[in-house]
């Protein structure tokens, strides 16, 4: 679960001077699809996402502009094949669009506006710097009621719809070493301004 304002700070295990900082709304996220990933033809379905990983905010994604094709191929596609079967392709979605998935006038007992998902720049030892995670926000998971449980199912349907069709790795616009270098510089600059 992602708490309020948790998306505003960095989650790189080495601290704010490393990685690329919080995920911005204009970024694109990449979801890797393997042979064992459930899907409907060329589209993701709600079944493509591990519910438990979403609840724990552990669903891995890559930040498209902040990773090179080679890096993604080695660190995600090839590494993932060991456990999840052959790499099939990837689906992309805009971070702002995913954050914008919401519900209104729900639950019936206490109607309110509920946003479903948050995205963290979570990088743990062994991850590449353009790694991130996707998960439910606290407001979509607490309290643990049947009504909110039902809402989570709808949120997952919406999440699947927000991703593009599954396509080959070559058709994605990856970051270049130069653009990634600039992004790193910007991250350090932001951290400096906060001091």
């Amino acid at each position, binding site marked *: 679960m992602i708490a309020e304002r948790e998306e505003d700070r960095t989650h790189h295990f080495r601290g704010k001077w490393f990685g690329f900082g919080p995920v911005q709304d204009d970024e694109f996220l990449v979801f890797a699809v393997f042979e064992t990933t459930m899907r*409907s033809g060329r589209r993701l379905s709600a079944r493509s996402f591990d519910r438990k990983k979403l609840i724990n905010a552990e669903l891995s994604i890559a930040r498209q502009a902040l990773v090179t094709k080679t890096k993604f191929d080695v660190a995600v596609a090839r590494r993932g094949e060991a456990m999840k079967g052959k790499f099939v392709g990837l689906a992309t979605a805009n971070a702002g669009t995913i954050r914008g998935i919401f519900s209104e006038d*729900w639950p019936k007992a206490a109607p309110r506006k509920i946003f479903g998902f948050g995205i963290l720049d979570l990088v743990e030892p062994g991850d590449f710097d353009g790694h991130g995670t996707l998960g439910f926000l606290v407001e979509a998971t607490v309290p643990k009621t049947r009504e909110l449980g039902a809402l989570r199912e709808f949120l997952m349907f919406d999440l699947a719809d927000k991703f593009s069709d599954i396509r080959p790795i070559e058709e994605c616009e990856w970051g270049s070493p130069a653009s990634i270098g600039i992004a790193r510089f910007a991250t350090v600059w932001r951290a400096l301004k906060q001091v």
Partner: protein
Amino acid sequence: MDVFQRRNVTGAQSLFERACHMTIPQLMDVYPRSTGEGVVPYWLCEISRAATGVLDRSEIKVPDHFAVKWSLRGTGGSFELYEAISRAQSTAELPDAAQIRTINSLKLEKRVSLERHLTKIDADSLTYADAAVRDALSVIRRHNLSDAENVMISEDGILSIQWRKTTSGAAMVFTGDGKILVSMAAPGKLYSQKPTQISATDSLPREFLKALEQFHV
């Protein structure tokens, strides 16, 4: 083994009263005879908690229409429970008139049952999952709903069915507490935005049924 079938009793009435307070495990354990109807999944063998209001799934109050048969011939009579218990009603009433079912609808029904078989449900949500499956089967039968793109059950026993096309879709979620949530998605409208909640005994909203017509697979 012979607890219910051969126990001597003084009268049929006392036997029936005893049957009314038996528990499910006993029923299942002591009845080894096959009726030829095949094995019935256990979640179909329970009365919906939403229908009865009974939260404890270990005890069942057998209603009058359950088939308790006895014979006064022989040694004081015996009775047998046949598979009528597997026809426990859902939270929704079935229509009186028989209807012609489509193969697509039967397929969806089968997928729902199969999904329940394959999904590992948290122990504390089993009753909800079973009630959700019963409610779903009842709704599918009543409305002859056609096969869907996705059928899934969460670990906490919430069953959802989704029909989808390129830019639009419709979904139903069964929470297992006698409620159904329905929602439709289209460009600019999310599934989660404003779901409609109805009782499992209610008919599905007309506009929802109309929307489903475009998703026939």
